[in-house]
């Protein structure tokens, strides 16, 4: 067996591909929690996108919504720690009162930003891509300005949630152990992701809300003629979606780092949109696509920690480190260009809805 593998690895070019696959298979169980952790913000962004676009509103401003939420979560910590005190970390997830309040404020911020986008897209009927872009620019400018103001004293934030430590026996189960590791070795937001994905998948396709949401995104006029309030439903969905994006932003500053840096979302909101398209506007599909993108980032990290052996290792060592930084972005473009034709968006996606007919 080993000899066979060595033989295959020895073939020029193809061997390198085989070695890559072999390496991926061997590291996957170890990096699976990292993959999920990289996927969380992307998947939450994608989920936000699914919710908006299924209702017919294009939301390019997810990136900005996440950035604002990440900032608010951190800034809330900065202001609240002196007031509420650090408090002893809780037994599970290292919860402190400040962290909880910071998370809630981040969600509130997400709701507000989403309300702004909803207002511009639905009531003002502005071009939705421009509206979203403005939210991104504004988020970058305002968080940058406030961060400059606050960070001059290099204050401490509220810290971060810690990861759950599942029982060793569970993780070390043969074959399936790494799956438990993947989904359970997470903080509170990371762990809630799977629940959110499943809940939205079921509700979108089985519930009355889901049916109405889909109809509003496909043919709002038809929905209105059967008595559905298109404007209200779109508002509600876009705003709720903002809370989901905010979770993704708060994840970055409250669960990954415990601090804020300018532009820390680094395009995850946009990668989320690509995941949504590739996942065909379904929550589960988008989650799968997010995992795909996250793997490309996680592999880059793991190569730094545990470089692959043999010829592949030599090859990889020659690549500049920046190549791995760019990998998720390259993967996004390649997959998007390859798959998009087969993925059909909701028919009324991005079209403002005007109620009263003119004739």
């Amino acid at each position, binding site marked *: 067996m080993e000899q066979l593998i060595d033989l295959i690895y020895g073939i020029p070019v193809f061997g390198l591909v085989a070695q890559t696959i072999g390496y991926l298979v061997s590291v996957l169980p170890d990096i699976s929690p990292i993959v999920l952790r990289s996927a969380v913000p992307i998947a939450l962004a994608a989920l936000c996108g699914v919710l908006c676009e299924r209702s017919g509103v294009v939301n390019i401003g997810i990136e900005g919504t996440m950035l604002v939420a990440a900032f608010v979560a951190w800034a809330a910590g900065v202001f609240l720690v002196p007031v509420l005190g650090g408090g002893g970390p809780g037994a599970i997830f290292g919860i402190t009162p400040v962290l909880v309040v910071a998370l809630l404020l981040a969600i509130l911020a997400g709701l507000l930003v989403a309300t702004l986008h909803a207002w511009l897209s639905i009531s003002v009927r502005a071009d939705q891509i421009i509206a979203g872009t403005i939210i991104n620019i504004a988020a970058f400018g305002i968080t940058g300005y406030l961060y400059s103001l606050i960070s001059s004293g290099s204050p401490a934030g509220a810290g971060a949630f810690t990861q759950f430590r599942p029982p060793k026996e569970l993780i070390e189960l043969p074959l399936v152990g790494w799956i438990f590791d993947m989904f359970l070795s997470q903080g509170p937001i990371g762990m809630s992701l799977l629940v959110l994905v499943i809940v939205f998948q079921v509700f979108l396709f089985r519930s009355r809300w889901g*049916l109405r949401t889909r109809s509003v995104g*496909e*043919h709002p006029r*038809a929905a*209105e003629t*059967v*008595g559905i309030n298109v404007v209200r439903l779109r508002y509600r969905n876009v705003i709720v979606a903002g809370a989901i994006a905010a979770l993704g932003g708060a994840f970055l500053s409250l669960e990954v780092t415990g601090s804020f840096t300018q532009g820390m979302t680094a395009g995850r909101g946009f990668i989320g949109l690509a995941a949504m398209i590739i996942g065909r506007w379904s929550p589960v599909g988008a989650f799968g696509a997010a995992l795909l993108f996250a793997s490309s980032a996680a592999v880059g990290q793991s190569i730094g920690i545990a470089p692959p052996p043999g010829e592949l290792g030599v090859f990889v060592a020659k690549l500049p480190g920046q190549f791995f930084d760019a990998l998720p972005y390259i993967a996004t473009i390649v997959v998007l260009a390859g798959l998009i034709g087969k993925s059909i968006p909701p*028919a009324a996606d991005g079209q403002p809805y005007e109620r009263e*007919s003119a004739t």
Partner: protein
Amino acid sequence: MTEEVGAPALEMRGITKRYPGVIANDHIDLGVRPGEIHALLGENGAGKTTLMNVLYGLARPDEGEIRLDGEVVALEGPADAIARGISMVHQHFMLVPVLTVAENIVLGSETMKGRYFLDRAEAHRRIIELGQRFGFDIDPEARVGSLSVGWQQRVEILKALYRDARILVLDEPTAVLTPQETEEIFAVLRGLAKAGHSIVFISHKLYEVLEIADRITVIRRGKVVGQRLPSQTTEEDLAELMVGREVSLVVDRGISKPGEPVLKVVGLKARDDRGREAVRGVDLEIRAGEILGIAGVAGNGQDELVEALIGLRRPTDGQVTLEGHDITGHSIRSVYGAGVAFVPADRHRFGMVLAFSLPDNLVLTSYHREPYAHGILRDDAAIRRTAEERIKAFDIRTPTADVRASTLSGGNQQKVIVAREFARDLRLLVLDQPTRGLDVGSIEFIHKQAIAKRDAGTAILLVSAELDEVLELSDRIAVMYRGVIVGTFDGRTADKREIGLLMAVGAREPANGATEGSVA
């Protein structure tokens, strides 16, 4: 006028609705009794749809009141109307193509299992039962987008019945149906009326109104201009009421003098956007100075055929020759250059740029040629001169040439396209739904222009979902069904029923008693 028998189920009194610059409804009165089929007759733009939007809560009247069973009601929206037993079948179907029949029917009045979830099994049971009561079997799991228009119409009616509608409003329900489908729908409507439903039937087709209605109210320019009983009126009388002047119901098309063949199509095949073969081997020939009309239910490959001829779609097989020159698969620009013009069906999507001024729209297909351009430079003065000329010649009503095309009425927009395309020296003219949604005056104008063009020796291909238009204008008629030509007729002697049957089933005899392309 006869005395009213029985109290009206629905009464609209003094309904007035103003939009900026127009009074769409001007003190309209309308009463409908239980079990009555009441026709609302008027031409496009007369205010019929506005009136029904008022009734359905989609538009709020500026004046007037609506009474149901004698009680004044205020309708805040469709939900209100539905709750009071009013349902509407819109001219453009209000169906979501990607959803199933059942999902479309229950939408907004969902049958629930618990607080959040849909009860599909119960909904299916009720839909099948309702369908059977009115004589059709329907598959609740079928995607609406895959149904024929006739079946979509039935889904719309089921939607109304599912909500226990007492008053049913149908806006131009037969616009896209074959004569046979129309009769089937009429049978359903008569059954509903007999069961006690009140029906408002909106139309601009005189003979249909005479056939189905118990009473006819005619409106023109937002006002009620008369009420008639079918037994006491004629098509001519109704036409004059509707248009406000005497109209000739039949265009004087004169006698065509066909010359040499201009367009020859042999074995043409083309795929639609989803990659399915939509044109499956079409043979056609059109001579100079004749109009060939293509009849067919929308979606039988007419769009793809036209696009393949004109160069907007690449044919997969077959040959197209224009005056002996092979133009198969040539670019649209080179086809235009060979003396072909095309008036597209969707004027807002293809025919013009609504955000552009009239001069820019009037040179949309010739901006790159002398005298409008010298090399890569535009000649704005020349473009403007031509525009002024054509606005005058084709009587395009506009304050100045500088307005955006979007500010013109539908009839004037179509005149812009006609002015642009007819003005050239043409060998072949392709007209796709040239009068859809226009008022009688514009229709007459465009028909006359087409006949003048024919008499000048141009070969004309006319595609229309309105069988009446095809019958009125064509020297020869070809019927298209599922991507092939299933029959050709002489325009003067063609029998409407026979063509209708061909349109519906693709054969002159109904096969095995089935009367309809089944649910796909």
